[in-house]
């Protein structure tokens, strides 16, 4: 139980207090910073741009993801079940790639003056800087959320519901309209909420493609970032005020989507697991296949290979000549090595911390009803808070050194600014929800009688937990570790606000290289990040496949 008390104290200190600090700062002097910020035309514009961006991204990613889900799950567009599985995996690949890397790639391709696409066409026909480009990149980064959610709900739905409509006289299109779409609507609403919040909280893509556009476009997150770079107490207060607006916007969107999703929740447990009969596309099959291939090439293969290729192209003027000169340059720099070491250490430590804490919190939630519910809410809620808001909170709350002196002799000092510790706190608070969710699901699967059997066999409470519970939950704990470690490897949104001179990470290094306009060097780092992310993603898919068998 003392572990539980410790976990609660840590959550109060690192999750609740920083958010309270945001509120306190924004509302200081009778709400002066908030009122001042709300009077700024620039703030209105940033807010408006954020809503427009999130609206467009949601409006495009939801139909796109849902259509892809239906094609993958319900049609005969594939040669074999293997191709079906491989296509499904390829289409969710963008989830493993940090969105700002996609933005980098599209910046190389679609720069209005010297983007590759314009150079190949010898005419400035495309310019991805600005709102349009940001929308497109965020759509390619976020449609997999929808794809996964809709696919899951399609595969859960009883195939007989659709077959009943066929035998009642409905053709494939009618079945789609009358039965399939209404069945997956709740999961689409939930996914739409997720995408909206994702776009609202996005930082890397809007910054890369927005703040250097002409004219520059600012959003809530990028405006907050600008305030912090200006420095000073006042600017930080303004950032906090804007963070409240961001938090409220994303909170409202989440509330709306969960209300929509719950309004007519149609959970159908399939009575018999017959395989759904596939919709025959007939002559359309060729076009659907061609469309899928074209989409995968443009949205996934093209940007990723552009990055790899730019890192190998000898110079901007001679894109055809390949060489490892940039790789040698970048890898020889000490800061590159340091950044990757930091990121790997951060990922491993945060992953381990979250996996263990998640198990503790989930266990508490099961054993003690009321206290457990509070703790598991505290642990899960920060994930819904935009990273920019969390980071501002941590900046405000831990800008000083804190000392606890016990009996004049023992001193505990907590000094976080510019340390890896601050980044671990940020990542840990943000991703603890993954650890809790994974452990919770695993614990729910374990029938209490398994542990009870250990007790009646003569094992004490601790022994029973160690001998029976831990082996059974360890796959889930391992999975949580991987799921958390992967995004930490390339985290940008919070890192860019919290890193110090000696705590450069892969994400912030990339951010600086891109900002200094050194595309080849940035591409080398980006290729490394993508490589690590894809290997990690591959391993985690292998891991989860083994777990389900």
């Amino acid at each position: 139980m003392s572990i539980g008390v410790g976990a609660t104290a840590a959550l109060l200190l690192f999750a609740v207090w920083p958010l309270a600090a945001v509120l306190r700062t924004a509302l200081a002097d009778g709400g002066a910073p908030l009122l001042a910020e709300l009077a700024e035309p620039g703030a209105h514009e940033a807010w408006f741009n954020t809503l427009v961006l999130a609206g467009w991204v949601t409006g495009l990613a939801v139909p796109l993801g849902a259509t892809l889900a239906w094609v993958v799950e319900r049609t005969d567009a594939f040669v074999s079940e293997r191709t079906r599985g491989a296509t499904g995996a390829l289409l969710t690949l963008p989830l493993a790639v940090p969105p700002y890397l996609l933005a980098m790639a599209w910046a190389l391709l679609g720069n209005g003056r010297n983007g590759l696409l314009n150079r190949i066409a010898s005419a400035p026909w495309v310019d991805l800087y600005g709102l349009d480009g940001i929308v497109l990149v965020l759509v390619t980064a976020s449609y997999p959320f929808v794809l996964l959610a809709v696919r899951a709900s399609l595969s859960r739905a009883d195939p007989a519901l659709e077959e009943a409509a066929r035998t009642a006289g409905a053709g494939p299109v009618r079945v789609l309209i009358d039965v399939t779409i209404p069945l997956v609507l709740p999961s689409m609403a939930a996914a739409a909420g997720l995408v909206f919040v994702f776009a609202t909280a996005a930082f890397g893509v809007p910054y890369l493609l927005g703040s250097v556009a002409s004219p520059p476009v600012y959003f809530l997150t990028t405006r907050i970032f600008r305030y912090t770079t200006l420095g000073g107490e006042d600017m930080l207060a303004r950032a906090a005020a804007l963070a409240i607006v961001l938090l409220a916007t994303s909170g409202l969107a989440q509330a709306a989507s969960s209300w929509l999703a719950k309004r007519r929740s149609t959970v159908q447990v399939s009575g018999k697991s017959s395989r759904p009969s596939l919709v025959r596309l007939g002559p359309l099959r060729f076009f659907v296949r061609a469309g899928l291939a074209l989409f995968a090439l443009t949205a996934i293969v093209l940007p990723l290979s552009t990055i790899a290729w730019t890192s190998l192209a000898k110079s901007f003027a001679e894109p055809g000549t390949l060489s490892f000169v940039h790789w040698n340059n970048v890898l020889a720099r000490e800061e590159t090595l340091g950044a990757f070491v930091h990121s790997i250490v951060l990922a491993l430590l945060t992953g381990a911390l979250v996996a263990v804490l998640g198990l503790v919190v989930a266990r508490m939630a099961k054993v003690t009803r009321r206290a457990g519910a509070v703790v598991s809410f505290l642990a899960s809620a920060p994930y819904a808070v935009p990273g920019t808001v969390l980071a501002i909170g941590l900046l405000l709350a831990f800008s000083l050194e804190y000392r606890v002196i016990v009996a004049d002799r023992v001193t505990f000092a907590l000094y976080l600014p510019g340390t890896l510790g601050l980044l671990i706190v940020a990542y840990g608070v943000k991703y603890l929800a993954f650890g809790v969710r994974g452990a919770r699901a695993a614990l729910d699967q374990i029938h209490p009688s398994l542990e009870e059997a250990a007790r009646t066999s003569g094992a004490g409470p601790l022994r029973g937990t160690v001998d029976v519970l831990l082996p059974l939950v360890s796959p889930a704990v391992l999975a949580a570790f991987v799921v958390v470690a992967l995004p930490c490897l390339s985290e940008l949104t919070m890192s860019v606000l919290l890193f110090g001179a000696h705590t450069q990470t892969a994400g912030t290094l990339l951010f600086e290289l891109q900002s200094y306009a050194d595309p080849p060097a940035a591409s080398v780092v980006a290729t490394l990040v993508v490589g690590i992310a894809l290997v990690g993603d591959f391993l985690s898919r292998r891991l989860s496949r083994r777990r389900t068998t």
Partner: protein
Amino acid sequence: MSESGLELRAIHKRFGDNHVVRGLEIALEAGEIVALLGPSGCGKTTALRMVAGLETPDSGTITIAGQTVKSDAVDLPPEARRIGMVFQSYAVWPHKNVRDNVAYPLKLAKNGDAGARADRTLELVRLGGMGDRFPDTLSGGQQQRVALARALVAEPKLLLFDEPLSNLDAKLREEMRHEIRVLAKQVGITSLYVTHDQPEAFAVSDRVAVVLDGVIAQVAPPREIYAEPASLAVAKFVGRLSILEGVERTGEGRARVQGFELPVTSATDAQSVVLGVRPEDVRLADGGIEGRVTRATFLGERTELEIETLAGTLRADVGRSTPVHGGGTVHVALDGGRLYATPSH
């Protein structure tokens, strides 16, 4: 010859290496109810789904009410086959209320007074007044009635039932199988009914088709299937059966086992035979085949005995008040049996 309701000719279906349906043939008269009865994995559900058009046979012909819906040249999609189907999981659409569920086939057929006709059909299945309810407020039995109404409402040429009662509790199941039969007969619709439950198949159908290993082993009215199974495999699947060896024919309709003669029917001309005996044809007697009671199970309305004899193990149903205990020696007389060719091992 009466009008044809449904005809399946030489139907084959493979799933990968698994040859599930192997030349299945059956013909139903118009208005007839036939149950496809068989163990799980015998291909009966696959056969039904091929009739519905939800699976495609590798080869063979399917004709519904004189119209060929599947052959080498024709392959009508499910929606063009004019059928109604009731699913094991009910498949009542959760996003539509009861009336809209039932009216759906009529709306597709551009029927003007769909709502009114749906309400009339709901009354037929004793759900009058429930049209505005949503499925999640209904019990399993009521949901199955909705599914039944939906299958019936557009007056299809053929009704298909895929184990419709197996998700219901025992009492409701008995009630519903009676209702399904009465309704189907009242409307006069040809019906194909898949089940693995023998009493259900008998109660519902005019004829029972026993499906074993992807072919129809026997089609006959329930009484005939039970009394005169065409083979030992059918006899074993339909009801309980004991098999005695050391049997010899002693004349037309007579056979001898363990020195006692009894009246028999025969499923075979073979010389080497075994005797299949139903538990209700075994009775305790003062003289007769000697055996030892190895198990006595009190089941309420009867007591089931397992009796070990020199010819094999016999199961016998005796009255509930018969004072028999395991371990004792008894004598039994056989009132009848059926001869089958000795199975080759």
